[in-house]
């Protein structure tokens, strides 16, 4: 069964939010990459917030991409934050150890307030 995901983004003053709904795996990861890439190129985007509220599943390729994003942003003094991952996604991120690195918040406002 092909996995489907809907990804949208919006840019705030010094941050950007990427909303995801559905499931992402190696087969449709390119959709996320194509949304994130232009945002990465803009140096004004200091805080990247990934809204995981609607995301049901991610696989190891997606975890690898999140790690890459974290490392890339970290090297340029920028921050990656996650919002409310669902239980399944939270389990995956915890298992792999990413939650040791990337802060998680319950809302976008909370994330922006605490990270700015």
């Amino acid at each position, binding site marked *: 069964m092909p996995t489907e995901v809907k990804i949208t983004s919006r840019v705030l003053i010094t941050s950007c939010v990427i909303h995801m709904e559905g499931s992402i795996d190696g087969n449709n990861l390119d959709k996320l990459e194509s949304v994130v890439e232009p945002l990465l190129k803009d140096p004004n985007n200091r805080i990247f917030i990934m809204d995981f509220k609607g995301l049901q599943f991610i*696989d*190891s390729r997606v975890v*690898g991409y999140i*790690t890459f994003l974290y*490392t890339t942003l970290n090297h340029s003094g920028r921050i990656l934050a996650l919002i409310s991952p669902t239980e399944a996604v939270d389990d995956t991120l915890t*298992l792999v*150890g990413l939650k040791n*690195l990337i802060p998680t918040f319950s809302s976008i406002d909370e994330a922006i307030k605490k990270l700015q």
Partner: protein
Amino acid sequence: MKFIRKSLTNKALLIFTLLTSAVVFVGIILNRKGIMDIPLNVFLISVISLLLFVLLVFIINVMIPVNRLLKQVTNLLTGKNYKKVDPTTIDEVGVMTHFFNEITHDLEKISYDIKERRRMSSELDIAAQIQKDVLPKEAPESPGLDIVAKTCSAAEVGGDTFDFVLSPDGNQLFVYIGDVTGHGVPAGLIMMMVDTLVTAMISRGVNNGRELIANTNSLLYPRISSRLFMTSVMLRWDKKNQKMYYTGAGHEHVLVYRKNTETVESIKSGGIALGMIPDVSKIVKETEIPLEIGDSVVLFTDGITEAKNQTGEMFEVTGLVESLKKHGYRPSAESIFDNLSKDFANFVGEYVQVDDITMIVIKYVGKDAATSKVKLTVSSEEGQIQRKSKIWNWTD
């Protein structure tokens, strides 16, 4: 003019029209001059000349281009060297010439692609064999433990690994399982790097899981892309004291079947995957798994828990836990392993294996129990067609 050049029929019609006009014109002139009789030789010469003219036109416009094309088509069909034909007209013969050139160009490309694929397939076979040779064929006998370990890769080269490494003094047995992001050649290369690092460090006296994981990570991190990582669980079996320890590096849970209570404990392995950050020494730790005789430890990769059946349901850790609850009482690691595999196979049914699958079952049988050699199986799915049609199994 283009109208005439584009079609042989139009050319023929034009020539016929011109000739007919010429004949009619000559007839009119002769009639006006009152010449009723034409000498036979004049008549014959005129007719023969006309026919020769028609033949000449036919030869130039049809026979020569067609023969030129036919020669190259014959060469192609008989396996000889052929060459491109320059189209000199834009009529039907010109179209066929152009078609021949396009087809042969595509054929050359396809032939090149096939040769390249064969070469790559042959190199993949070699890489797969190298990887099989690296994976353990047998493991050191470990008094107190009954072990079965099997892996099956989804492609020619896999990203799952496991190994059994004895410390130089023979007192510690390290058992580890690992899973690199994705599968195929990139995952296989990283898997082999890690295997080599772990084996080298143990041989140099690193004697606990935490140091092993931390050191492996620090050497691996600068050498791989930030998108790639490897999750792992390292078990350390202290033979002398009959104690087991685990160190997690972002891997799946460690399942422990408790014989006395017939329950399954699902332990989060903890830590962080190898290759994500430069220094994991503050995050990973080694913890004891207290074991009683009859208890079993199961390690696995996410190829098992993320396997789906035809309705899209995943097996998940809960599937494996339920299965272990049912079969953990069995007397040998092999019987536990086989029954876990049966439950898994029944769940996934006709399934296209999209990820590597590895499982290790370790039963603690006590120091005095006789143990047989560790059973290991390494296999890979053989071809795309077979992969899609056969019911999932560990062996080819």
